[in-house]
């Protein structure tokens, strides 16, 4: 429950950083702020991070259009699954293959 609430807070902040016009929010400053957020997520307890990663998929339908895709892709964009798979080479290899397949589709 808490994870979902925190996921919603993070999602709103990420949407602000991603979708605000360049004339209002400097693009490079926004990226640097997102690096800060990503570093903070990496530092979370692994169990809570697992719940948080799953929560982004739960709250994504609350948004529409581009925002929905962005919220759903927050774990992918921050490499959160790779953070959770540290020390598991098989899982890391699987995640690498999934990334390559997704990049090939784009």
């Amino acid at each position: 429950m808490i994870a979902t609430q925190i996921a919603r807070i993070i999602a709103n902040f990420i949407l602000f950083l991603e979708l605000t016009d360049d004339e209002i929010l400097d693009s490079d400053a926004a990226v640097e702020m997102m690096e800060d957020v990503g570093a903070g997520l990496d530092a979370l307890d692994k169990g809570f991070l697992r719940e948080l990663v799953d929560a982004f998929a739960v709250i994504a339908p609350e948004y529409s259009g581009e925002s929905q895709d962005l919220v759903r892709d927050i774990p992918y964009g921050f490499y959160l699954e790779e953070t959770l798979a540290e020390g598991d080479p098989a899982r890391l290899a699987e995640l690498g293959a999934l990334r390559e397949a997704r990049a090939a589709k784009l």
Partner: protein
Amino acid sequence: MTQASRDKQQSVFSQWLRTGRLPSDGIFDGVERKFNPWHDPADGQFAFAGTGRYYGAGMAKPVPRAPARLARAHPQESQIRSQPKAVTSRAKQPASTAEPSEAHGAAGGRAKPVAARLGDQRNAAAEFVGGVGEGIYGVGKNTVVALHSALTTNPVTTVRNASLGIASRIDDALAAENIPARVQVARAADAIANASPREIGQATGSVVGNTALAVLPSAALGKVSALRRLPEAPPRVSYDPPEIGWVKENLGRDTPAKRYNDAATGGRPGQAPTLMRTMSDGSKRPVKFDGIQGEYVIDRKFKVMTLPRARAQLLRQSDVLAQHRLIGTWEVPTEKQRIAALELLKEMKVTNIKVRVVKP
């Protein structure tokens, strides 16, 4: 005391009679004096070597072939004597080729310059031969200097020097072509008439040396072909240093990510280095980085991401780096981030940004 002084003077005079030398080193007040054993028997004055009578050691010199008065009275003598080159070259001759008596130092004679003697046929021939040697030596030395310059200096400098030399020769030739032939012939005749045997020998030696150089196919053709190839070499491309601008950047927070980015090499606190990016419509927009090191601009990534704005930033940086012909460097804190960055660069087909790990 007086007797001792007189005895000393007699001893010095006796030594001078026996050896032709004074006991001193022959240098008085910094001026070196040399003994001249040749005297004119008519008036006792000093004469040139080979003229007059020899009064030196052994007294065995041959009878002079020409009277001293005739030698001094020669109309060309004063002109030749005034030429410093003849005196200098004479002084450079080895002792074995000079008159033995001239090599001895002694006092009593005035310091006279040794000059070339047109009336002495043997010496004139020797001077001519010496001049030939100097001419050939000069040609050889110039050739060696030119070859050394071609092999050791910057090719561009060599070509420029060679071009300047060739241009000078062409200027001389053009100037000569503008002078009537009769004037050139008259000048040549006048120069030959007033030239000393050594000068004629030098000219002859130069001609011989240049002819020998010209008939050597390998040396001459190699020299010319090498110099002709040099201008065709592609010039080295040099780029101006990156035009870095600085903009204020105060994001108002103190986090590990901010501290890491602010610690980039060449960064300034509260400022960010920027490169100006030219957009497709001609407008210009700055692209921020975190530091600069030489010709490399640095952007620090505390966390690598694949979110849309992060991808757009990567493309902006790659584009502005390509416009400025620069290479960028991403600095990341861990090996895991480096791998993620390499995968992202590969996916985005960016090749002008390198990645390295720099610990916080």
